[in-house]
Structure formats: structure tokens, C-alpha cells
């Protein structure tokens, strides 16, 4: 694979755009089907075989509707927010190594890039809510900000434990260090960090909170806040937020796979490749759906208590422990 640089770039831009788009669209299909199976229903079945045309029908319906910009909203920000919300997923996937060779941008600061851009998601939701000039949206904005501050901290703390032990920010290098059988994955490397499985759990919990997924979907909270931050959005404006939710879940699961589950490394130490990366990533995506349909939404103080009283102390402790282990061993 040695295409000249402009072609390589174009191929990856196209590839990532279509990967994100298709995944976002078909995770919208996976969600109701998963929900259905968890409740012993078949899910959507009418549009196409096994309801496979449902996302296309949904998209057509959304596009045929009027994009209403209500009077009194900050029109510029109102229109910018749906564009911004897709950015983390689109740019973040550029540095994700799908396999050893299949990575758009093999840079040394990959991890930093993902987490720096990941915060745009929060800003976008906050802008959407703020510019809507709607009381429900404002409450959602306040919740989004406090929730994301609370969960960014433990997430970055557990990521730092991984960076400490691997000594690099290059995602491909981090995956390469997890070579071998599955106990070499960062989530199971207990001889480097005795609390390794917990760091993975903390990361996954924070990922759920960062992407505003149930049981932490405080920004949307349809039973309390109509549609939270998206209350005033109609047509494809809402559709983009909807897709971005899944695109960001995809990115979160990709990062989780790379950092903790050995990325493209196979669990048996041979035949590594993109297929393993995709399998692990989609398993995490399935777990996200699984969690949503298992647990009810937490209350807001419960959410903050979980972060400040449990996740942050535990992740600080794991950070101390793993750095001590690094020094001693």
C-alpha cells in the first residue's frame, strides 16, 4: 500500500467519511433491534428485509422536513452546532489504527488529538442547547457541561495510566505493545497495573457519560427535558445530532479497543488484522446498547456522586499504583 500522498489522503478521507456515515446510520438500526431483542420483540421488520431499509427511510423522512430556526434563537450558533458535533468522530477516526497498516494518520500525538477534539462534542451540545433559547435546552446545557467536566477527569486519569506504562501517545505503538495472547491487553495486564480491569471499567463508564449515553443521557433525558439540548431542532439538524451520537459512540469504542483491548491484535497471538479490531469495537458498541437497555437513567446527583466520590478517587489511586509499580519493577 504505497499510494502517492494525495491519493492516499483522498482514499482515507472518503473511507472514513463513508465508514462513519454508514456506521452511524446502521447503528441507528442496531439500536432498536438490540432494544427489541432485549425486550423479546423483533424490532423494526417492515422496511426492507429485517428492517434494513429503516435508516434510509428515516433519513428520507428527516430530509423532507423543514429545518425550522425558531425566532429568537442565535441563528449562527444554532446552525453551527450540528456541524460541530460530527467533528470529533470524523477527525478522531483519522488516527485510529484499524490494522497495522490501515491508519490514515500515523502520528505520535494521536491519543492527544482524539481527546482534544473529543471535547468539541461537549461544546457542540452546549452551543446547541444555549442557542436554542429554550428552558429545557438550557437545563440540558448545564447538565452536559457539569457531567462532562466530571467524567473527563477520571477518563483522562485512567488514560494516563495507560500512557505511563506504554510510554507513547502513538495509538499504533500502543497497540503494538499489546502483542501476544489476550492477557497482554492493557485491560488484563495486572502485572503492570494491578487494577487494570478497573481502569478499563472506569474508561468505559466515562465513555458512556462523555457520549451522553444511557444510563447517563442527562443531556437528552426525554422523560424530563422533552429532548434536552435538541428540543428545538427539526429535520436533518436533529438527524445530524442523532447520527453524531452513534458516531461518537463508535469513536469511543474504537479508542477503548485501541487502549485496552489490544486494537488489531488477535486474542490468540496470531492472525492479527483489521477484523479483530472491528470485532472488538462492535462488541463494545453492542455492550453500549446492552447497558442502555439494562439500566435506567441515573439521577443527576447520582451521576455526579459516582464521578467525584468513586471514579475520580479510584482512578487517582490506580494512577498512583501504576506509577509506583513502574518505579519499583
Amino acid at each position, binding site marked *: 500500500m504505497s499510494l502517492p500522498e494525495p491519493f492516499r489522503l483522498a482514499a482515507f478521507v472518503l473511507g472514513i467519511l463513508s465508514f462513519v456515515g454508514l456506521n452511524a446510520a446502521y447503528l441507528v438500526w442496531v439500536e432498536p433491534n*438490540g432494544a*427489541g*431483542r*432485549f*425486550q*423479546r*420483540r*423483533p424490532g423494526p*421488520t417492515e422496511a426492507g428485509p429485517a428492517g434494513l431499509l429503516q435508516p434510509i427511510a428515516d433519513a428520507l423522512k428527516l430530509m423532507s422536513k423543514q429545518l425550522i430556526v425558531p425566532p429568537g434563537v442565535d441563528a449562527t450558533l444554532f446552525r453551527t452546532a450540528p456541524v460541530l458535533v460530527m467533528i470529533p468522530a470524523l477527525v478522531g477516526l483519522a488516527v485510529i489504527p484499524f490494522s497495522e497498516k490501515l491508519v490514515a494518520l500515523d502520528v505520535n500525538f494521536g491519543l492527544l488529538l482524539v481527546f482534544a477534539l473529543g471535547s468539541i462534542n461537549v461544546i457542540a451540545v452546549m452551543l446547541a442547547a444555549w442557542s436554542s433559547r429554550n428552558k429545557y435546552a438550557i437545563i440540558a446545557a448545564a447538565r452536559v457541561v457539569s457531567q462532562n467536566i466530571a467524567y473527563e477527569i477520571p477518563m483522562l486519569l485512567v488514560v494516563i495510566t495507560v500512557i505511563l506504562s506504554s510510554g507513547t501517545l502513538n495509538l499504533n505503538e500502543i497497540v503494538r505493545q499489546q502483542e501476544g495472547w489476550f492477557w497482554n491487553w492493557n485491560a488484563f495486564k495486572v502485572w503492570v497495573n494491578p487494577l487494570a480491569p478497573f481502569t478499563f*471499567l472506569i474508561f468505559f463508564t466515562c465513555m458512556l457519560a462523555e457520549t451522553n449515553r444511557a444510563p447517563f443521557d442527562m443531556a437528552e433525558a426525554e422523560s424530563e427535558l422533552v429532548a434536552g439540548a435538541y428540543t428545538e431542532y427539526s429535520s436533518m439538524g436533529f438527524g445530524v445530532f442523532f447520527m453524531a451520537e452513534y458516531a461518537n459512540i463508535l469513536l469511543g469504542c474504537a479508542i477503548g479497543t485501541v487502549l485496552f483491548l489490544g486494537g488489531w491484535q488477535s486474542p490468540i497471538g496470531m492472525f492479527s488484522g483489521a477484523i479483530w479490531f472491528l470485532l472488538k469495537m462492535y462488541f463494545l458498541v453492542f455492550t453500549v446498547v*446492552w*447497558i442502555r*437497555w*439494562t*439500566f435506567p437513567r441515573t439521577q443527576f446527583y447520582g451521576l455526579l456522586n459516582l464521578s467525584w466520590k*468513586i471514579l475520580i478517587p479510584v482512578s487517582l489511586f490506580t494512577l498512583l499504583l501504576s506509577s509506583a509499580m513502574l518505579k519499583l519493577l
Partner: protein
Amino acid sequence: MKPIREFFSGLKSLFIGMGITLRQFFKPTITLQYPHESLKMPKRFRGHIELVRDQETGRPLCYACTLCQKACPSDCIMLEGAKMEGEKKKSVTKYVLDFTKCSLCGACVEVCPDDCIQFSNQYNLACLSKDEYLVELFKMLEDESRSDGFPPWPKPPAPGVADNKAAPASARSGPPSATTPVQNPGTPRPATEKPEEKPS
């Protein structure tokens, strides 16, 4: 120690909950795709009434005694009977249930002396117009018998000369007793009450 114990028991309960939902995930779905398939009602479901068929001839057991019509509190049964050629007993020739008025009380089934009507299992009863709720129970049974391969039923003598013409009270023009002769259930009518024009 207590908060740590609580933390671990809480964490454990999360995994237990996920285990339960995962088990449900792999069980077969129990949805019935309603417009495409519908539930079979149990035998004792009390739908609207239907005529009971004589298992040998495929004809209705009903001999138009009109007791059900009289028992009906909301006048929703309308039936006619006639004597078929070469038969001693009368038999029903028309049986219409006005389902818009029927409250499914079952008084008609209760009163029927020979169990000639029963509750059907029908429950898909939404219609587009009021006329469709006039359920032609006799025609329904006739069609059903024909499709089950029974010989065609004997035709009633001639239109307008039916033995016993009965209509719900609301449709009656004269005094009720004039048009609906009282009849002993289970016994053939006396010859004296028969109309003058006999079927040829």
C-alpha cells in the same frame, strides 16, 4: 470498610443485571405480528354469537323458535325461519345480528333450548361502516358449510312466504304480538298457525 463493600456489591449487581438482560436477548421473541398473524382465541372466548352446525348435514341446528330474539335486551337479533320441503321441523332461513347494539351479554345463548347458538371466537371486529356490523350469521354458516364440502342446503320455499317472519322490535310496524307468534321451544309448530300459502 462499609463504602468499599457497598461499592463492590453495587458493581456486582450491575453485572448481574446485565446477565439477566443478556439471557433475555438470546431467547426467542414472543411478538405476534398482528396484522399478518393473529392470536387464536381460547374455546371459551365470548365473541359475538354464531349458529351451531349440524355435524352431519352441515345445516344450522336452529329451528327459528325466536326465543333468543325475545331474550335479547337490546333487540339486536333478527331471524326468520321456514319449513323446508318434506321436513317436519322449521329451520332458520335468515339470522342477522346487529353488532352495533350487541353488548355480548350472552342472554341469547343462555336461553337457547337446544344449544343452537354459541359464542364465536371472532375478535377482529373493526369495520368501516355501520352496515358492516349487521352480521349475517346464516350466510356465514352457509358459506362455511359449502367450503367444508357439505351438500347445498335446501332453499326456503319462496321469498315473502316464510313461515315465521320476525324482526327486532325497532323494525316492527304493528304491535309486537301481531307479527311474532309465540311458539313453544323445541316443538314443531301446530299446523293451524301456518300461513295460507303453502310451499308447492
